[in-house]
């Protein structure tokens, strides 16, 4: 059982180190996604499938993909050259291997190898929802205001007088 944990943890460590030491932004982001996926497998092993799913959906899914899109869109240079650089195996080979290992790890975990009995009873989504909207409803409201502040800031700092047209939108 421990073996699966150590494998996922090792993948998380390796990919995180590569994410912060990588010079290429796309490189780093791909590695970061792997790191987040590995953390989510660890959550699953700890018998917290809801958090694991959130980790994948929110971090690896939404935020990181957004990052990659923005980085790709902002890249300056002729498109052909960039495409060639992205298709270079050096960019994706290590993250792919790590992701494949993670997948094998995950399949082995869900395939019959039983998970150790959790200390407390498993927290299900319903309980999370109920406690968010009863005990912690104030915190949820404050989080809403926090997001509002972020939106106001993005609006203010993003609205420039200087017109900058994206290269795709020119002409």
């Amino acid at each position, binding site marked *: 059982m421990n073996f699966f944990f150590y494998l996922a943890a090792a993948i998380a460590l390796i990919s995180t180190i590569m994410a912060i030491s990588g010079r290429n932004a796309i490189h780093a982001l791909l590695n970061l996604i792997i790191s987040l996926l590995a953390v989510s497998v660890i959550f699953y092993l700890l018998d917290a499938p809801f958090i694991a799913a959130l980790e994948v959906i929110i971090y690896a899914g939404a935020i990181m993909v957004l990052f990659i899109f923005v980085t790709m869109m902002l890249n300056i240079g002729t498109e052909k050259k960039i495409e060639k650089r992205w298709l270079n195996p050096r960019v994706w080979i290590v993250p792919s291997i790590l992701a494949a290992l993670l997948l094998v790890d995950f399949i082995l975990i869900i395939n019959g190898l039983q998970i150790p009995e959790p200390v407390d009873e498993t927290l299900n989504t319903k309980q999370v929802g109920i406690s968010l909207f009863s*005990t*912690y*409803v*104030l*915190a949820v*409201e*404050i*989080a809403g*205001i*926090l997001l*509002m*502040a*972020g939106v*106001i*800031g993005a*609006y*203010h*700092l993003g*609205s*420039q*007088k200087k017109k900058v047209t994206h290269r795709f939108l020119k002409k």
Partner: protein
Amino acid sequence: MTIADLYSMMPLIVIAMAPVVMMIVISILRNYEVIYGFSVLAFIVAFASLFFTGSFLPRSIEPLLIVDVYSLFFLGIIIASALLVTILSHDYIGTLGGVKEEYFLTLFTSTLGASLLAVAGHFVIFFLGLELLSVSLYILVAFQRSKDTSVEAGIKYLLLASVSSAFLLFGMALIYTGTGTMQFAGVASLLKGSDAIAGFVSVGFSMMMVGIGFKLALVPFHMWTPDVYQGAPAPVSAYIATVSKGAVMAVLIRFFFDIRGYDSRFFFVVISALAILSMFIGNLLALKQQNIKRLLAYSSIANMGYLLVLLLTGTDKGIQAAVFYLISYFVTTIGAFGVITLLSISREETEKIDDYRGLFWTRPWAALVLTLSMLSLAGIPFTAGFIAKFYLILEGMKAGLMLLIIVMIINSVIGLYYYLRVITSMFTPGDDAGLPAISLNGNMALVLITLGILILGIYPGWLINIITRLVSL
């Protein structure tokens, strides 16, 4: 949640509602004066609601908030300071081009964050309040998009504050691992049984101290302070120096006294070291500054060092002295930054000490307020700063913190040098460098601040009476 709970949260509700209403107003009519007037009104209403709230206290809204007289006092200080900053910002922000009404919206969200810190009784509110405060401050610091220094300061603050928040959050998680609760009271009752803080929990506390130390700009987490103070618009610097630090101090005092940190050797050593380093390095680095905003930044580092001494007293009297110190520090700092704000135009700030040469002969009134603020920061008698320092030293001596008090007195003498340098610069002859005229609005704020500094300095008894009667944990 009962209706009494809602009543006790009245100030918070007013501050939270204001930006929402303002956004609706903006969508109908985008007018700077209307939004400004509304913000001033909303802050006054929030302040007035404190008196209404008083009859419902103390009340703890399980498990997140604790609204007691102590937090009410801090709410009052925070709201009053935010109101003063709003009034001082009017002319400065008004001269900016483009859309600028968002300034007041963010001022409200950051004040809400600060207020939440004052009532926090749970790590969740602690963290959310701090993040709300920080996110709003990123926007305020970088508000002048067209100015390079402003954007630089914003980016610096964003990166460093995020890292420090991560430290804080990790620390909270470790404490949760060790104790299984995130309520201050719960953590405290679990720690009471054991004498030594060990394992996860001690690492957690250390990491939390990093996050808090960053927000209070204690040495060695102070690197961001001078650059951010210099780059941010002057009223925002005033806001960071007062509201943001005061709110973090409020939650630090509550948490520290809840867990009885002053009894622990570990905390005693850590807090003493932070205090001594902050005092010395803050004051020594201020000596040679040519920029008055940087000078005030280093001065604020040193002042937070002085305040830490009171944490170690571990008595209600210590808290009362801390509250008095914070009030006098707030009035004084807002006074100093207020003069800078009013004498600056948003594109070109009057921030070099040389710019103030001859100010006494050309603008005696502004020079008088700045002189008073500097004297108060230095701790000269008949100003608020003197009484505050006196009170602080008195309580420190009673608690037997001789080493810290001696270091503090040495540093007060070092501080005198650079505060007086600003004053002498104002009295040396020079010509009017085309500084803007101060509006009625600004003059009113300056009169309030001057009265505050003088009244607290000459006749502080009534305030000390109120504080000693009401404030305790």
